[in-house]
């Protein structure tokens, strides 16, 4: 598939259809694929595609430096492509001003990333073109929120102790915020001090509040690409929090982020008959 990708990108760049290709390339240091920005046709040979292409490149579409490069072609997997829908619904990108190259993906990461076991977007939806065929289905995908269901078996006290432990380790490097395509605010709530909704110190209290804030801002927006959990230097499992809200949105409002452009995002909309059992 790498060959096809390089050919397509060379022609796109030569025809001037796009000014830059945002894809994966091998960097000198550790042989792992990382985001690269190819602007000259003969640099396309730096582009590669393999099962280590973990990064969600759509996060670059909201960066001023990348926008300044002109119309991009972007390489996306299925889980990354869902973020394009969310970004478009939130008026951050003009979907028509980019060329989306979808890669059929059988799963990334060795060992396989946890998100891939329950993946149902092996072929990216809403891509302008797809390279590669849908992988042979090796059996039904796992239920989407298996990891969360299992975590919720614990008692509330155990769960609180678990998150207290995770919060104690957090060093507030905000890698989770920067890799996330839906975290594009010019100045994040955590960078505001009048009032300081969240303390900047990495105390347990402030980290707890930070993870609640980050997670709740993903309600109905997180597309499950799992990058936040992959890049966390101290291994905080944020996927659990995102799954908690994704499941809530799915079960209560039948809404899955980034799957349908027409249905309005659930935060900012409301239902006259939202079912609940806890309001007195």
């Amino acid at each position: 598939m790498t060959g096809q990708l390089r050919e397509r990108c060379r022609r796109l760049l030569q025809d001037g259809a796009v000014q830059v290709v945002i894809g994966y390339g091998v960097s000198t240091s550790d042989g792992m694929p990382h985001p690269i920005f190819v602007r000259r046709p003969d640099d396309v040979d730096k582009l590669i595609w393999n099962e280590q292409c973990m990064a969600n490149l759509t996060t670059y579409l909201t960066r001023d430096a990348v926008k300044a490069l002109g119309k991009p072609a972007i390489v996306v997997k299925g889980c990354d492509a869902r973020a394009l829908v969310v970004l478009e619904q939130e008026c951050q990108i003009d979907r028509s001003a980019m060329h989306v190259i979808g890669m059929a993906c059988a799963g990334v990461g060795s060992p396989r990333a946890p998100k891939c076991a329950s993946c149902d977007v092996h072929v990216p939806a809403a891509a302008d073109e797809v390279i590669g065929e849908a992988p042979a289905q090796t059996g039904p995908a796992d239920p989407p929120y298996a990891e969360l269901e299992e975590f919720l078996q614990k008692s509330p006290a155990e769960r609180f102790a678990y998150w207290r432990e995770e919060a104690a380790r957090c060093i507030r490097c905000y890698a989770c915020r920067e890799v996330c395509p839906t975290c594009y605010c010019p100045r994040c709530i955590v960078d505001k001090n009048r009032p300081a909704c969240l303390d900047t110190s990495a105390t347990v209290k402030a980290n707890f509040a930070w993870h609640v804030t980050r997670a709740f801002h993903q309600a109905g927006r997180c597309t499950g690409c799992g990058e936040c959990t992959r890049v966390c230097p101290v291994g905080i499992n944020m996927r659990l929090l995102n799954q908690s809200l994704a499941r809530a949105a799915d079960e209560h409002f039948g809404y899955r982020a980034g799957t349908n452009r027409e249905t309005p995002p659930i935060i900012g909309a409301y239902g006259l008959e939202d079912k609940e059992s806890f309001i007195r």
Partner: protein
Amino acid sequence: MSELIAQEALPGLVAKWLAQGKRVAGPSVVKPGYCLYVELKSSAQLALEGFIRPRNSIKEFVFPHHEAICRYHFSGHTVETEDCDPPQVDQVIVGARPCDAAALPILDHLFTWDYEDKFYTERRKATTVVTLACQAHDDACFCTSLDLGPAAEQGSDVLLLAVPGGYEVRCLTDKGRALFAGETRTVEQTAVVPPGPPVMVAPGTIMAFLQARYDDPMWADLALRCLGCGACAYTCPTCHCFDIVDEGTAAGGCRVKNWDCCQFAMFTQHASGHNPRSGQSQRQRQRIQHKFRIYPEKFGVMLCTGCGNCARNCPVGLGVLSTLKETAGSAPVEVGV
């Protein structure tokens, strides 16, 4: 001739230090695939094999992530303030890597050159670093390019070198000797230290190169990838920037010294709204320039120990080494890939 302690004696020593009321920190596998330096509650947590080096660094124990430097309390119309003193507790960092220990002398320069930051110096005095020489390295390691190596002694009080069935103990300072007094027995063989990573970049040429290429457009291309998070700075043994902020409620609060990172957009944000380094390329350039030109010009030592944490923790695989290779790499020096 060299001093030796048995493999299983080390956890025993840790338990003894804990019992003596010392604060002991060391590498520990907190989650599968995540080895971090943490404060050890019990010797069982100590992990000495199965990883190249922890993802974070030992600077946390001499320059904590957040630290109250003064407390204030409102009562009526008056405000009472009281300074906070750094905790007076001895601490032992056991199982540190040489590239971590070597960072401490580098940081000493900063925290003592014009204003003695007693929060740092008090902790530094009360800390004994027991370094464990490296047995292996990975692509991210480049300590040899900075005149260090798998058994570098800079910054360590005691250097342990793995030998079959135990560790050779080289006590380098009085603190180290005091710590290991009577714990070792003399034996014949001395440890054999495997070679470190090949030298990849020559420090001498980097400074001149950076001086010349300050306004080079390469920084912009290079920094396109950088997402502006703090993973590199916060896990780097030598990064030392901090921000001071007041946190409190109506009843009172404390003035806190927090880590800060030059890659954050807010790092140089002026109250006026102007930001001298508004783009990520300026911030990436600043990081490299500060580590390999500005700090050495002032203190004569590179602000880097080649530990590779920045590359391992960078979400997009940047890190200092790859940047140096792509930039200084064009300098006329033998560059092994």
